[in-house]
């Protein structure tokens, strides 16, 4: 594909205006071509900045006065769990994944993974018992979430092993920016993760297949993705 055509897709992508085959092709380009192409990275960054500025093209309007008090009520105290997760994220984002089971998320946590598996399964059972639970398929796994709850689960059975030399990486996308959450590897096809993050605050869940050392940047080699 020529760069002109790629940039057409990137322009539609930043405006959130792609659908169907164009959206799929853009996903492929964003994971396979753009990260390695300085011209496309530069174009994408420029378009994203323009798209953000375009928001100023709408007339400013004061929101209802009740909005800020409503937000204040819902802010709550800064969550120690979230805050600590944030502090750790820059150094080792995989620590965001807690209560894991059957996963090689970190060597330190792997030692007691059997106990964690049981604990995570019990937590997931309790969590998903509520009537407002939503189940979002992301390839062979399912994201289990509840509105207003600041954590969610990824669970799956019969999840295929990643290609040799790679692991699965979990990303959450918000405002066009992908955040690397951590990596995991199924054991016997089994996956259950508890994440101390509110999935409703993100637009999309993305799972990639990349080498273990990846801790950020742009998602590459996307295996599965789904809107939150």
């Amino acid at each position: 594909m020529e760069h002109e055509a790629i940039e057409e897709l990137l322009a539609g992508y930043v405006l959130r205006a792609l659908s169907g085959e164009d959206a799929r092709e853009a996903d492929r380009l964003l994971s396979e071509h753009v990260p390695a192409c300085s011209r496309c990275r530069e174009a994408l960054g420029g378009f994203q900045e323009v798209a953000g500025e375009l928001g100023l093209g709408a007339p400013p309007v004061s929101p209802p006065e009740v909005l800020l008090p409503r937000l204040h009520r819902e802010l709550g105290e800064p969550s120690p769990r979230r805050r600590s997760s944030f502090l750790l994220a820059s150094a080792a984002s995989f620590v965001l994944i807690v209560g894991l089971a059957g996963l090689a998320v970190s060597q330190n946590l792997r030692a007691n993974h059997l106990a964690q598996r049981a604990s995570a399964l019990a937590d997931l059972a309790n969590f998903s018992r509520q009537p407002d639970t939503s189940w979002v398929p992301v390839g062979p796994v399912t994201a289990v979430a509840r509105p207003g709850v600041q954590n969610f689960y990824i669970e799956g059975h019969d999840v295929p092993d990643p290609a040799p030399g790679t692991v699965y990486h979990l990303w959450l996308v918000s405002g066009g920016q992908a955040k690397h959450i951590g990596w995991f590897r199924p054991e016997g096809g089994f996956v259950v993760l508890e994440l101390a993050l509110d999935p409703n605050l993100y637009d999309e869940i993305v799972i990639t297949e990349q080498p273990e050392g990846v801790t950020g940047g742009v998602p590459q080699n996307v295996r599965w993705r789904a809107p939150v």
Partner: protein
Amino acid sequence: MREDDRDDLELHRRLSAGDRSAFDELYRRYARSSYGLALRITGQEVLAQDVVHDAFLALWRAPEAYDPARGPFRTFFLSLVHHRAVDTVRREERLRKRTERAANLEPVRDEDVAEAVVDESFLSGRRKEVREALLTLSPEQRQVLEMAYFGGMTQVAIAERLGIPLGTVKTRTLAALRKLRGVLGRED
């Protein structure tokens, strides 16, 4: 980097550490722009309020979603509001009525007249630049850009609505973004 962008960066840093006063200050700076944008896209005050509410709550709960290396806070946050508003519009499946209004460039409701002297006065200069930049586009480029950005329409839907080939929509969109990038980049 503009001084206002540096201030935003510092506010974001404080917010990330759990500073509520920084949250309030960012709200004061961006609430009107965000609500105006969400209202323009959704066309409904209740939906717009929910969009802005969710965006600010997302900022509070996941401040790390913003990466300063990728540009000013303002473009990140307004993109966040835009994405959520577009998703809301599509979810609500009330696209047609709103896009007709969004495409005519008229405000959904009266714009706040005190813009230059109240909360987000620092944004007024950039807002003027953006509006002037939009005027540099050809009417055809501006039309497809506004139908996509403010109308929340896909390019396929725009092509159908205007009765033009999808390729033409793509070409006009790319030309519009390139031109805006050049104009806004020069004025930055």
